[in-house]
């Protein structure tokens, strides 16, 4: 909503520096998005007389114009417009003038001819463009006079306000003026124009209005007007509309817009002669009813749209949203039915949205217009229209009444106001803050009974709504600041949040870069990754390629690898921690949403991923975990394992299936680790029980076994651990050998075992016995052979 300072001043004596006023508006919640000083940059523009016009010898699109700028000395100007004739008065920007748009007027040559200034179009001097070409001034202006003085242009200030959804009143000049006047402590007055109507011509006989559905229309007021000449608006009115961003059309449309901007009440005009039966019926439309609207479109309605119908029950307008073409004002119109109504906000919002017609009028109706301003707005309409055309008005309103809501009466407790705002106001001080914005109060004991004004009835109906108004007008900035402190909790991250951080930072320290691919996938991305295509889908995606919610981090990370590979960075070690969405049980209220860790090492083989897993396990302090050879979907069939912790599968490690990688244009091997953090972090972990460091010497023993390929190293380690018991304090697989020196189908696994007792030095006999026990366990239990 744009407002002009001069217009606000018609309601209240508002004074002050424009930027200070902008701060005051913002402090009221009317956020100022821009302040523009109008008419301030017109120095140097004078009224000049056109003396002669001549063709430019070398150009068709410009002509030469001789003007008298007031000193009688003709000046030649090159001009691109042709709408002026000798004798016309025009605005003339003299040499050295800086135009409002910043352009400096200098003497220059255009295709060989000198131009000594510029003739101005209306828009170039900040006025409404009513005709194309140069602005032709009234003939009685004095040649040489200052343009601003001659035009009566005063400097003005335009504020561009961002009006929030709870402030229907601020969608009008009057409403903004009321709020600002209250804040500044100056009086606000709503003018009530007096307009003559034709006492001998009662409106009642001219037309009838029936509200068929009162839940659609709370009030419908009509006036009958005659003898209207449709033509241009007065310049001042057109200028104001232009300043507020509306294009002047003709006097009738312009007055309608002007009254809407000034008082917040939209209106509509029907060509009464074309309204069948001179009768208006307001009702809900029927599904499939159609109407041709003013914009030339054929609109189809539903039972939830409001319709304005004629005496034959044909739809002639969409309530509150757009009028119909059949009753539009035209050159042959002699009688007008002027309508102002109060519509059910929800129905207007619905229809405007469904039809994509978010007009200024619809916006005001859907926020909640003021049913009590209709009378003033009617009189203002006629008063303004009579500035451009004599218009006769029939005596009396034609009124249809529906179910108009009543503004609430709210009990406002003084204690509650102070408790919510953190202030210490007396009951009567609260009433004083509320009165100037139309909220009248009556003291009831310590508290107030507050009557909400009609222009706030849609958004204000409860105590807290009124408290907000008290707060606004007390001033948020004046409220003393306090800092509450929790007394029963320490500020802290949860265990899971701390683990997640530890993990992230450990992975970064280990050389992995955190990536964040978009969580949306394209249809087909999951299948291409070898994963089940069943997923949660976005029903209104921006683009089809972002319509599937990921069930795994793998596709997104593979896309990241492919992107970097295509930019000559094929070796990337990265990780992501993020949510995946599993459609596990469609009868559940929400998808199974889990936090996953995905680690990809491009150009590396599976062992590199197990190394990262060991870092993860160590950082999180996991208990006993095992790798079970198995390939989850999307992973390398012979180079992957599931990670099992406490009997639960919590992830998988290995490599990406080469076919999957290749499907994502990743041509290198990709070591891959995926961990279900939601499952993992719910299991007991991070308990690091102290084990006394032995002060006695240890003995190291190296053992190498030739083990069949189908026996996992994990089984050997496990057998060694069991056999070594408490004396085995460290076990490390330090070499794996395959080749000529071992039997085909097997490999050599070399372990270093460290034996140590907590309470004594182990004897050679003890070490020897435990060593033999270990060897026996692996040979006997797993069919391995001890390597010499």
């Amino acid at each position, binding site marked *: 909503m744009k407002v002009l300072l001069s217009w606000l001043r018609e309601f209240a004596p508002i004074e002050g520096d424009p930027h200070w006023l902008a701060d005051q508006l913002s402090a009221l919640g009317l956020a100022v998005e821009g302040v523009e000083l109008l008419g301030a940059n017109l120095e140097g523009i004078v009224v000049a007389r056109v003396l002669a016009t001549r063709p430019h010898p070398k150009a068709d699109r410009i002509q030469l114009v001789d003007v008298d700028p007031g000193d009688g000395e003709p000046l030649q100007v090159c001009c691109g417009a042709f709408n002026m004739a000798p004798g016309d008065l025009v605005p003339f920007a003299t040499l050295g003038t800086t135009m409002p748009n910043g352009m400096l007027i200098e003497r220059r040559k255009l295709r060989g001819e000198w131009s000594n200034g510029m003739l101005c179009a209306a828009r170039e001097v900040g006025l409404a463009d009513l005709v194309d070409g140069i602005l032709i001034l009234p003939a009685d202006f004095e040649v040489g006079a200052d343009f601003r003085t001659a035009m009566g242009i005063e400097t003005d200030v335009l504020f561009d306000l961002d009006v929030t959804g709870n402030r229907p009143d601020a969608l009008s000049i009057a409403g903004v003026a009321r709020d600002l006047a209250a804040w500044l402590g100056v009086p606000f007055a709503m003018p009530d124009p007096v307009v003559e109507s034709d006492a001998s011509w009662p409106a009642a006989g001219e037309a009838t209005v029936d509200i068929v559905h009162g839940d659609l229309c709370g009030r419908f007021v009509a006036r009958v007007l005659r003898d209207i000449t449709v033509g241009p608006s007065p310049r001042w009115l057109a200028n104001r509309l232009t300043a507020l961003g509306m294009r002047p059309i003709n006097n009738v449309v312009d007055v309608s817009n002007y009254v809407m901007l000034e008082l917040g009440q939209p209106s509509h005009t029907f060509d009464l002669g074309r309204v069948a039966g001179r009768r208006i019926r307001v009702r809900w439309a029927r599904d499939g009813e159609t109407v041709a609207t003013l914009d030339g479109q054929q609109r189809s309605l539903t039972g939830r749209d409001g319709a304005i119908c004629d005496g034959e029950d044909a739809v002639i307008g969409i309530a509150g949203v757009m009028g119909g073409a059949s009753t539009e004002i035209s050159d042959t119109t002699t009688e007008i039915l002027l309508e102002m109504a109060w519509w059910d906000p929800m129905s207007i919002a619905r229809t405007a949205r469904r039809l994509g017609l978010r007009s200024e009028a619809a916006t005001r109706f859907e926020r909640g217009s003021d049913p009590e301003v209709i009378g003033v707005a009617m009189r203002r309409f006629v008063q303004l229209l009579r500035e451009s055309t004599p218009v006769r008005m029939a005596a009396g309103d034609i009124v249809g009444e529906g179910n108009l809501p009543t503004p609430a009466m709210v009990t406002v407790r003084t204690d509650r106001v102070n408790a919510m705002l953190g202030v210490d106001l007396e009951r009567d001080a609260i009433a004083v803050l509320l009165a100037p914005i139309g909220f009248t109060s009556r003291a009831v004991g310590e508290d107030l009974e507050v009557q909400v004004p009609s222009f706030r009835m849609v958004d204000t109906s409860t105590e807290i709504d009124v*408290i907000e108004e008290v707060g606004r007008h007390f001033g948020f900035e004046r409220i003393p600041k306090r*800092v509450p402190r929790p007394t029963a*909790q320490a500020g802290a*991250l*949860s265990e899971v949040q701390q683990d997640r951080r530890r993990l992230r930072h450990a992975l970064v320290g280990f050389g992995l870069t955190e990536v*964040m691919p978009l969580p949306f996938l394209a249809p087909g991305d999951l299948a291409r990754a070898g994963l089940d295509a069943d997923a949660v889908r976005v029903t209104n995606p921006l683009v089809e390629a972002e319509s599937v919610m990921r069930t795994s981090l793998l596709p997104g990370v593979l896309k990241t690898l492919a992107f970097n590979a295509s930019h000559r960075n094929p070796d990337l070690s990265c990780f992501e921690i993020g949510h995946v969405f599993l459609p596990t049980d469609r009868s559940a209220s929400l998808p199974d949403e889990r936090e996953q860790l995905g680690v990809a090492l491009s150009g590396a083989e599976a062992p590199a991923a197990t190394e990262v897993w060991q870092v993860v396990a160590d950082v999180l302090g996991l208990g006993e975990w095992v790798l079970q050879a198995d390939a989850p979907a999307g992973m390398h069939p012979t180079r992957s394992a599931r990670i099992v912790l406490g009997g639960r599968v919590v992830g998988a490690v290995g490599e990406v299936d080469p076919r999957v990688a290749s499907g994502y244009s990743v041509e290198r091997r990709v070591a891959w680790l995926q961990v279900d953090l939601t499952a993992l972090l719910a299991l007991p972990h991070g308990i690091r029980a102290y084990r006394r460091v032995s002060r006695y010497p240890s003995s190291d023993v190296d053992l190498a076994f030739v083990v069949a390929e189908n026996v996992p190293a994990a089984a050997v380690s496990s057998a060694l651990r069991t056999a070594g018991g408490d004396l085995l304090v460290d076990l490390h697989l330090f070499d794996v050998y395959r080749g000529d020196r071992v039997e085909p189908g097997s490999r050599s696994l070399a372990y270093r075992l460290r034996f140590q007792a907590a309470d004594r030095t182990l004897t050679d006999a003890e070490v020897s016995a435990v060593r033999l026990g270990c060897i026996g366990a692996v040979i006997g239990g797993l069919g391995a052979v001890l390597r010499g």
Partner: protein
Amino acid sequence: MTTELDAVERARVEALAKVATAATFEELATVETEVLGKRSMIVELRKALGGLDAEGRRSVGQAVNTAMTEVGDAVAARRVAIESVDRAARLETERLDLSEFSPRRRRGHLHPFTAAWERLEDVFVGMGFQVAEGPEIETEWFNFGALNFPAGHPARESQDSLWVDWGDPGATLLRTHTSPVQVRTMLAHEPPIYVVCPGRVYRQDTPDATHMPVFHQIEGLVIDKGISLGDLAGTLDSFVKAFFGGAFSSRLRPSYFPFTEPSAEFDVRRPDGSWLELGGCGMVHPNVLRAGGIDPEQWSGFAFGFGIDRFALTRHGVDDLREFWSGDVRFLSQF
């Protein structure tokens, strides 16, 4: 006697000369045996002391001792000298040009959004808050209904939200803010509540330099006895000073959100006097408290929220949000 003294002097000079010529530990060992060993001239001279008179024993004995000490010291000094030369030679063979080497393992990089997220969490944790989280796909009730969005509210029905095919049409969506976590927290915990809810949220925004359909925000919720708008203003001011620095301050401007009343925008005032619009806030609406199972007559509270990603953007001077989502290692490795 003079003869013996001359002999000691000759032996001393000779010994010192030999020590001085020893170039290696081996040569020095040989020389040491030669000049100080049992068969050495000096030791022989000492053995012969018994044949001298008392005066001769005293003066020659003294000369012998002096010579032996001097030669012994010379041997020790020579050993140190040889050691030093030897070490220098050995070190020379170990010389490395460290500029020849590049690290085999480079550190990784935390995503700038994560860094900003953690900094914000840390400040609020320091102010006594805990951190709450919730799902990114939410029911319509948690995202809108419980938050006092009226049935026909534009945000609810419009295309601003991304809806998913879960349950009835219009039942489930990608959360448009982290406020559902506030409701979940209220339902799960008795007041007092002091939490912040950082998280990923979704809107139907076409990606450009300043918009993404996915972004991160952090919201705060305080519910306690006697919480007022003044507590909100003070808490935000305290946050602003802790996060941006003591020279920054804040203000509240009245605004409108369905889930708070009174509602406000909060702005940060930079030391140069300019203002930065940071986010929205307000007193939790009584209807929202009720939806969270909290009696608005007993408890009151405030909530606030703002975007996280913008901090990463301005902190590093990045001019396009899309960079953060590109996965481009040339971008990510700068942080």
